[in-house]
C-alpha cells in the first residue's frame, strides 16, 4: 500500500482493519470521535461490524462478549470513558481475553477539558480496575508508530490473552501524517488457534466457559499466580524503548513518552547547538516499563529530567528505576496545555547550571 496522509484516529482504525479486526464497539467522546466514525463506514465495506453502544460501560462489555467468542475486537475512548471501562478491563484480564483498547487521553480529572494530556498513565499501567492484573500499554509518538503499534497490539493481546492498551493523546488523534501499511506484515508473536473461545460445545474440545469467578480460594490463588506468570513474561520479553541523543557521558537524561518526546527531541537539537550533552529515553511500552534501560542511561548522566503532561505519574516509575542513584527533575504542563521546546531547553540549562531543584517524594 502506498503512503497515505491520514489523521491519527483514522490511521488507528485502518491499522486495526489491516490486523484483521472486524468488530468495533464504541461511544462518542471528544477527542477520539473520528475513530468510531471511521470504523462505522470502513467496517461495513469489508463485512465487519460496527456498533455504537449506549455507553462505554456497554461498549466494554460488548467487547468482552465478542472477544470471548474468539474474534479480534477493538474499542476506543478518552479518559472519562476509559474510567467507565475499568470494571470491564478487570473482567477481561481475569477472564484472560484478548482485546485492544485505545485511549486518546484528554485533560482531567472529571470532565476536565478536551485538549491533550498524559494524566492517565497510572490508570493504564497500575490498573484502573480492581484486582491483581496488568494491561500491556503501548505509547506511540507518531501516526505511523500508532498504526504499527495497533497492529502489534492485536498480536500481543492474542498471545498473552490479555487486554492491551494503546495510549495516545489528543495530538496523536488529531494530527495528520504520512502512514504506510506494510504489505505482508508478519505477526510479532507466534499465535495459536483460539480453542478456548466459547463458540459452541460440539464435543470436539472441553466446554468453554469465559469466566473470572473462582469461589474456591485455592483455585483463585492458582488462577492469580498464572496471571502473575503472564505479567512476568511480559516484563521479561516485551519491553520496548528507544534512546536518542548523546552517546556516552551526558549532562542530562530526559525521560518522556508520546508526543512530549517529540517536543523534547526538538529541544535536544537546540541544546546540542548550545553545547549541552543531552540524551533521551523514550519508553514505548509503559507497562512493562523499561526500568533497566532508564537505569543504564542514567548512569552516564549527571541528572535526569522527566517531562510529562501530568502532575507526576511516569516520574514514579523513573524513581523506581533509579533507586535514588541520580537526582530527578520534573517539568510538566497540565490542563490541556502543551510543553514547548523552549521550556525544556530552559529547564535543561537550569539543571546543568545547578539552579533547578530536584523533586523529592518525601
Amino acid at each position, binding site marked *: 500500500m502506498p503512503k497515505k496522509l491520514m489523521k491519527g484516529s483514522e490511521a488507528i482504525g485502518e491499522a486495526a482493519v489491516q490486523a484483521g479486526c472486524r468488530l468495533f464497539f464504541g*461511544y*462518542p*467522546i*471528544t477527542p477520539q*470521535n473520528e475513530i*468510531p*466514525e471511521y470504523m*462505522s*463506514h470502513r467496517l*461495513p465495506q469489508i463485512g465487519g461490524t*460496527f*456498533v*455504537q453502544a*449506549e*455507553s*462505554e*460501560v456497554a461498549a466494554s462489555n460488548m467487547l468482552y462478549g465478542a472477544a470471548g467468542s474468539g474474534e479480534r475486537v477493538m474499542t476506543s475512548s478518552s479518559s*472519562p470513558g476509559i474510567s467507565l471501562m475499568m470494571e470491564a478491563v478487570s473482567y477481561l484480564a481475569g477472564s484472560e481475553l484478548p482485546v485492544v483498547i485505545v485511549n486518546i487521553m484528554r485533560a482531567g480529572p*472529571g*470532565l476536565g477539558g478536551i485538549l491533550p494530556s498524559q494524566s492517565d498513565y497510572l490508570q493504564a499501567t497500575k490498573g484502573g480496575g480492581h484486582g491483581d492484573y496488568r494491561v500491556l500499554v503501548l505509547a506511540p509518538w507518531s501516526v505511523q508508530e500508532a498504526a504499527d503499534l495497533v497492529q502489534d497490539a492485536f498480536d500481543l493481546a492474542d498471545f498473552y490473552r490479555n487486554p492491551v492498551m494503546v495510549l495516545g493523546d489528543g495530538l496523536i488523534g488529531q494530527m495528520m501524517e504520512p502512514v504506510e501499511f506494510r504489505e505482508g506484515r508478519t505477526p510479532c508473536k507466534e499465535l495459536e488457534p483460539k480453542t478456548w473461545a466459547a463458540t459452541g460445545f460440539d464435543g470436539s474440545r472441553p466446554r468453554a466457559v469465559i469466566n473470572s469467578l473462582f469461589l474456591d480460594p485455592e483455585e483463585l490463588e492458582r488462577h492469580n499466580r498464572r496471571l502473575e506468570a503472564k505479567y512476568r513474561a511480559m516484563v521479561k520479553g516485551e519491553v520496548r524503548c528507544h534512546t536518542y541523543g548523546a552517546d556516552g557521558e551526558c549532562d542530562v537524561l530526559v525521560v518522556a513518552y508520546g508526543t512530549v518526546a517529540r517536543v523534547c527531541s526538538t529541544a535536544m537539537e537546540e541544546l546540542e547547538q548550545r553545547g549541552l550533552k543531552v540524551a533521551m529515553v523514550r519508553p514505548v511500552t509503559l507497562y512493562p516499563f523499561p526500568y533497566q534501560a532508564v537505569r543504564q542511561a542514567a548512569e552516564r548522566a549527571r541528572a535526569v529530567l522527566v517531562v510529562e503532561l501530568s502532575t507526576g505519574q511516569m516520574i514514579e516509575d523513573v524513581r523506581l528505576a533509579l533507586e535514588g542513584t541520580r537526582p530527578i527533575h520534573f517539568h510538566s504542563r497540565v490542563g490541556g496545555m502543551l510543553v514547548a521546546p523552549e521550556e525544556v531547553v530552559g529547564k535543561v540549562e537550569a539543571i546543568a547550571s545547578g539552579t533547578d531543584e530536584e523533586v523529592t517524594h518525601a
Partner: protein
Amino acid sequence: MPETVVFSRPESLLPVTTHYCPGCTHGVIHRLVAEVLDELGVRERTVGVAPVGCAVLAYNYFNTDFHEASHGRAPAVATGIKRARPDLVVFTYQGDGDLASIGMAEIVHCANRGEKVTVVFVNNAIYGMTGGQMAPTTMPGQVATTCPLGRDVEQAGHPIRIVELISTLRTPAFVARASVHTPLHTVGAKEMLRRAFSYQVRGTCFTLVEILSTCPTNWGIPPAESTRWLEKNMLPYYPLGVFKVPEGESRAPRPLEQ
C-alpha cells in the same frame, strides 16, 4: 407616552451570549425554563443539573445554583440533591445522548422512585456536541457520522420514544412531549414546563417534559428549513401531548394476545 416592556430577558437567564449555534432551539428552551422559574417565583431556591452534551455549559446561562453531572447521571445527581434538600426546586436538562443512551438506567429509576424533580429532555435526534453521531432518537434513514448511509433499523433498531417508555411505569408522574419548532408550538412547550414545575413546587410527583428541538448544524440545513424537517420527520413519530398525569391511571400493560 409611557413605555412598558412586554417582552424581555427573564431574570433566571443571565445576560450572556450562549455558545449555541445560530438557530439552535436550546436557546428557546433555556428561555422557557427561565420564564417559568420567574413566574413561579422559585429562582432563588432552584438548583439545576447540567448534562454532558451541547448544554454542558448550561450553568453559565441560568441565574441559579448548578451541578455538573457526568454523562447520563444527571437524574441520579438530582436525586441526591432533592433527597438532601427537599425544599429546593431541582431540574435536570439533558439531551438525547445523555438521557436516552448512557443515562437510560438513571432516568428510568429516577422516574420509578418518583423523585420530585423536573427533567427537561431535549430531543434533536442526533448527538450535537460531539459532532453529529447517531442518537437513540435518530430517525430511520437519517444520516449521521456513525451511520453514514442512514440509520439502518436492522442494525441499530428503531428510535426510542422516551415519553412513552417512562409513561408505562406505575409510579405517578407528569410526562409530556412538546416542541419548539414554531413559535406557537413554543407557547405550548412553555405550558408543559409550567405544569411540570408546578407539580414539583406542590411536591406531587416526578415530572418529565420531552421537547423536540432542531440541530441545524448537524442536520446540515439552515435553521428555518430544520423546523420544517422536524415537522415532517419527527412529529409523526414523536406525538405531542400529555402522556401521564399523577392523578390519572398509569398505562397498565395489556398483552397483545391471550
